[in-house]
C-alpha cells in the first residue's frame, strides 16, 4: 500500500463517525438546537475564521500554551538532570516533589487569579506548574536509569567528568524524557483551556464560553473543533520531532 494512502485509511473510522454525525443530524435524530450538524459546524468554522476572531484567539492561546510548556520543559529537564547528578539537589527537591505531586494542578488556577490577575501571566503560570512535575520526574527517572556501562566506557575513554551529563546521560535518557514531554504537552492544552474558561480574557477557551452564552452553538462546536485540531496537530508534530531526534537509535 502506498504511503500517501496509509494515513487516510488508518483514520477511516473517524471519517465514518463524522459522516454518521452528519446523517444523524440530517435525518432529525439529533436535536439541532443542542447538537448542530457537522455541516453547520464547519460553516460556523469558516465564518469565525472570516471574521478574524478564531485565528486571533488561537494565536493568543497558542502563545500561552507554548510559553508555559517550554518554560516547564526547560526548568523540568534541568532540575531532573541536576537531581540525578547531585545528591544535594535531590535531597532538597525530592521532598517538595513528593509533597506537591498529589495536588491536582488545576486547583492552582484560583491562586494564580489572586496573584497574577486575569492577564496572560496567570494562564502561563497555570500551564507551567501543571506541566513541570511530569517533566522533572521522567527526566530524573530516565537519567538515573542510564546504563552504567555507558558511563564506565566514557570514563575509561577519558571523557571529562563535567561533560558526562550532557554528552552521555542526556542523550541516553532522551527517549524517556521525550515520553514525559509528550504527556506534559497534552496536559498543557488541558490547562490552557481550563484557565481560559475560568479567567475569561480572550483565547479559545474564552471564545468557546462566550459563543455558548450567546446561544451560537454551531460557533461553539466550531471553536471546540479548533482546540481539538490544535491539540492533535501539536501531538503529531511532537511525534515527528521525536522520531527525527531519536533516529540514531535504530
Amino acid at each position, binding site marked *: 500500500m502506498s504511503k500517501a494512502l496509509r494515513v487516510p485509511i*488508518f*483514520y*477511516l*473510522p*473517524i471519517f465514518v*463517525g463524522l459522516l454518521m454525525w452528519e446523517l444523524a443530524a440530517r435525518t432529525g435524530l439529533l436535536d439541532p438546537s*443542542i*447538537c448542530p450538524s457537522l455541516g453547520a459546524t464547519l460553516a460556523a468554522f469558516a465564518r469565525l475564521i472570516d471574521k478574524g476572531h478564531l485565528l486571533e484567539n488561537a494565536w493568543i492561546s497558542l502563545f500561552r500554551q507554548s510559553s508555559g510548556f517550554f518554560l516547564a520543559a526547560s526548568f523540568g529537564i534541568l532540575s531532573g538532570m541536576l537531581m540525578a547528578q547531585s545528591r544535594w539537589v535531590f*535531597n*532538597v*527537591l*525530592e*521532598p*517538595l516533589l513528593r*509533597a*506537591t*505531586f*498529589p*495536588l*491536582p*494542578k*488545576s*486547583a*492552582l*488556577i*484560583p*491562586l494564580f*487569579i*489572586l*496573584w497574577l490577575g486575569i492577564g496572560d501571566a496567570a494562564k502561563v503560570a497555570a500551564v507551567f506548574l501543571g506541566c513541570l512535575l511530569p517533566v522533572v520526574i521522567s527526566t530524573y527517572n530516565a537519567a538515573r536509569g542510564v546504563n552504567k556501562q555507558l558511563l564506565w566506557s566514557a570514563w575509561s575513554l577519558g571523557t571529562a567528568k563535567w561533560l558526562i551529563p550532557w554528552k552521555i546521560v542526556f542523550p541516553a535518557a532522551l527517549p524517556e524524557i521525550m515520553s514525559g514531554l509528550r504527556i506534559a*504537552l*497534552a496536559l498543557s*492544552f*488541558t490547562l*490552557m*483551556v*481550563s484557565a481560559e*474558561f*475560568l479567567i475569561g480574557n480572550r483565547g*479559545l*477557551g474564552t471564545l*468557546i*464560553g462566550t459563543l*455558548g452564552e450567546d446561544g451560537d*452553538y454551531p460557533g*461553539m*462546536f466550531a471553536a*471546540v473543533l479548533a*482546540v*481539538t485540531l490544535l*491539540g*492533535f496537530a*501539536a*501531538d*503529531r508534530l511532537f511525534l515527528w520531532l521525536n522520531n527525527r531526534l531519536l533516529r540514531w537509535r535504530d
Partner: protein
Amino acid sequence: MATRSTTSWLWRGFERNVSIVVVLALWEITTRAGLFNNFLLPPLSDVLARGLRDVMNGELPRQALITAYIAVVGFALAAAAGVAAGALMSMSAVVRRIMEPVVSVAFPIPKISFLPIFILWFGLDNMPKIMMIAFTCIVPIISATYLGTATVDKYFLWSAQNLGTTRHTLFWKVIVPAAAPQIISGLQVAFPLALIIAVVTEMLTGADGLGGYMIHAVRFAQSDKVFAGLLATLLLGMFFMQAFAILRARLLVWHAETASAGAT
C-alpha cells in the same frame, strides 16, 4: 544497637522531609515579618486556622466528599468501560481496526474543551462533571488495557490452551491476571486526571465541591480560604494516591513486584 538504629531512622525521616519543613517555616516567618502582602500570601497559621474552622463547621469535609464522589463515579465508569474496550481491542481485529484511530486521536486532544457541550447536553448538575471525568479518564485506561492484554506472554496462552482451557476461562483466568499490573498502572495514571477535571468542572459550574469552594473564595477575595482549599485538595489527592498504592499491593499480592517491594 536499638537506639542507634532509632536515631538513624529519625535522622533519615528528617533528611527526607527537611526541605518541606524549611519551606513551611519560611512561609510562616516571612509572612509574619511582613515581607509579603498578607492578602496575597496569608501566614500559614492563619490558613490552618481557617481550614480548621471550616473543618469544624463541616464545610470542608462536605465539599471534599462531593469532589471525591464525582471523581470516583466518573472514574469508575471510565474504568469499567475502558477495561472492557481495551480487552475487546486485543481480542477482536474488527474492534481494534475501529478503535485504534479513535484512541490515537482522542489521546492528545484537550477533552476539557468539550465541557460547555456537556453542560448543554446534561444540564448543570453532577451529570456533565461525571461524564467529563469519564471521557477524560477512559483514554489512558483503554490504551493501557489494550497494551497489557495484547502483550501477554505467549507461553502462558499456549500452555493454557494445551491444557484445554476454554476461550472464556482463558480470558478471565490467564489474560486478565497477566495484564493486571499494566491495567492497574493505567488506572493509576487516569485517577489524577479525574481529580484535575473534577476540580476544574466544579470551578466552572461554581457551585459545590472543593473547586467551587476555592473559586467562591477568589470572588469574595478571601485569600486564606483559597489556601485552605488548596491544602484540602492536596490532602484529598494524597489520600487517593495512598489508597491506590495499597489497593495495588493487595490486588497484585501474588505478583513478583509486590514480593520484591515487601523484601526491601
